[in-house]
């Protein structure tokens, strides 16, 4: 039993990071190339669409007078053609999650699924440094790539934002632009890596990661983002559409009036209240405007909103919590990896 007593005192020099970088590059260059390939194709199509939108918007701006029939026609065409995000826009909203989960999911799961972890984790480098050499460049890389791609999306949406068809705080633009897109991509990646370690299989890992990512993105758009900062309130009926609407309600003499009561009054006035939301639209001339009538009766419409000037503050908030969330997930991954007992 002498060997048990002889504790080693020589500190071992670890394998240099430079060599590990080669390993990462050699094993994941196809992933990198395919991610960049997909994004290149999307960039080209966004560029073409963006050029068209820009040309149409320029024509619209230079058209005088605005009330002329041809100008109104241009306006209507522009709105109809570019006003909604469409299929591609929906896809772009999901892209950080898709790419993140597809890049992160196989990272550990493929090794566990094919048994190559028995090779990789018994080399001199040790599994922690090995994993760090994959995870850190992966997370940073996908964040940087998506930030660049977010800039392309922002460029594409610029004419629509200027036109007022959408806002930079819109659910389809905010999370895929600025810094937030980096946070969302990292979250997808980190979810994929952790799910891969837990599932030990590629497909369930990617599916789980994307599912959780989607739930989180939905939650953020619906419940979190509008409340990062206390929304501003206004009683103005002409709030610029560059801002992000949070909610609207009516008050009378400073007391909130329930929506059902307002609907009852509006119906009595002959207005269509098929939805819960009462439109902020002041028509000129014609029949007496129901909204205006309500205002004349002493009701006040209050709108809470996030001003577009808060864009970068909110971007930093979203990036901040997503980065923290990703770090927690990756921390958990490393902890599990360290004490993993196959």
């Amino acid at each position: 039993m002498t060997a048990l007593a002889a504790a080693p005192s020589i500190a071992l020099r670890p394998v240099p990071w430079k060599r590990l970088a080669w390993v990462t590059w050699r094993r994941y260059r196809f992933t990198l190339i395919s991610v960049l390939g997909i994004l290149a194709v999307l960039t080209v199509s966004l560029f073409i669409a963006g050029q068209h939108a820009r040309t149409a918007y320029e024509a619209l701006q230079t058209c005088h007078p605005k009330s002329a029939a041809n100008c109104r026609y241009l306006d209507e065409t522009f709105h109809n053609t570019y006003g909604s995000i469409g299929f591609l826009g929906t896809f772009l909203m999901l892209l950080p999650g898709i790419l993140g989960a597809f890049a992160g999911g196989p990272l550990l799961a493929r090794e566990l699924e094919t048994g190559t972890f028995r090779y990789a984790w018994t080399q001199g480098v040790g599994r922690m440094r090995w994993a760090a050499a994959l995870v850190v460049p992966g997370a940073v890389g996908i964040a940087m790539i998506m930030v660049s791609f977010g800039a392309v999306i922002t460029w594409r949406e610029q004419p629509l934002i200027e036109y007022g068809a959408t806002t930079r705080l819109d659910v389809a633009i905010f999370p895929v632009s600025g810094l937030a897109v980096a946070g969302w991509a990292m979250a997808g990646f980190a979810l994929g890596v952790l799910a891969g370690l837990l599932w030990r299989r590629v497909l369930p890992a990617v599916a789980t990661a994307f599912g959780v990512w989607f739930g989180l993105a939905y939650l953020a758009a619906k419940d979190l983002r509008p409340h990062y900062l206390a929304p501003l309130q206004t009683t103005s009926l002409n709030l610029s559409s560059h801002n992000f609407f949070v909610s609207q309600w009516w008050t009378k003499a400073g007391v909130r009036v329930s929506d059902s009561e307002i609907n009852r009054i509006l119906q009595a006035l002959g207005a269509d209240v098929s939805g819960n939301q009462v439109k902020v639209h002041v028509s000129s001339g014609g029949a007496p405007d129901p909204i205006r009538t309500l205002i004349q009766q002493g009701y006040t419409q209050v709108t809470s909103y996030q001003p577009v000037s808060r864009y970068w503050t909110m971007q930093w908030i979203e990036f901040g919590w997503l980065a923290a969330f990703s770090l927690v997930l990756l921390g958990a991954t490393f902890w599990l990896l360290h004490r993993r007992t196959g």
Partner: protein
Amino acid sequence: MNIIETTGLGRRYASRWALRDCTLSLPAGRLVALIGPNGAGKSTLLNIIVGLTAPTVGEITVLDGHPAGSLAALDGIAFVAQDMPLYRNLTVGDMLHLTRNLNLSFDTAAARLRLADLGISEKQKAGKLSGGQRAQLALSLALARHPRLLVLDEPTGPLDPLARHEFMASVMTAMADEGISVVLSSHMLAELERAADHLVLVANGRIRLNGPVEDLIDSHRLITSATARSDDHAGWEVIESSSTDALTHRVVRLHDPTMDLPPGCESRSVGIEELTLAYFRNGAAAPSATLTGASR
């Protein structure tokens, strides 16, 4: 000097113990054969030795007292896992480069030479190699690290007899040339007959027998006597016995190999294969504690 020391080692999966009460001291510079039926706990023990699995209970140190799985242990131990997992879409050359970059020291020239001798082209994909070539590639990668301990988990299982022979010859050459220690698991008893120096028998997650091959051969006998006179004898322990009306054959372990046999007994020595089978056939009945206790 011992290359592996374990004390009360055990590993539990859910409610099942894959390995328990494993106390071993395996000598350096030997070929230690870990033998047992499938599911006996051989792979679990090897995975603990190379640091892939953490023990549930007990202690293990490798190579001069390093904890299993520590960087120093990983650096000095090369592992060829069951079914030789390699990145199938990488070429042989890439696997060489990959392994070089994952280790502090790697003898690329030696590995190239070995692969060239074996006729394995560096341009071939690892996934396209034959079973024998895969095994040789995995072994070449392991040997080029110049490990102090080489751990092989069922290395010859999927190989044909010729490839198996060549593989074992490569292992023996490396042992002779570099003095490395080898621990390998196998259920191919015949090929170990000549190769192994030290035997560890595992069944149902417990060590049944452990010792240098010579000692084990010396201390075990096949004793034949008339069934009428086949009384137990204080000087031995019966491992397995079978009787006909007239004669009883017993594989026994002698407490003292030099003892005189009682009159009327015929005795001959047993080979590793016969010995091992006797222990395994008797697996459930044998009191393993006495066996392990007596083996050291």
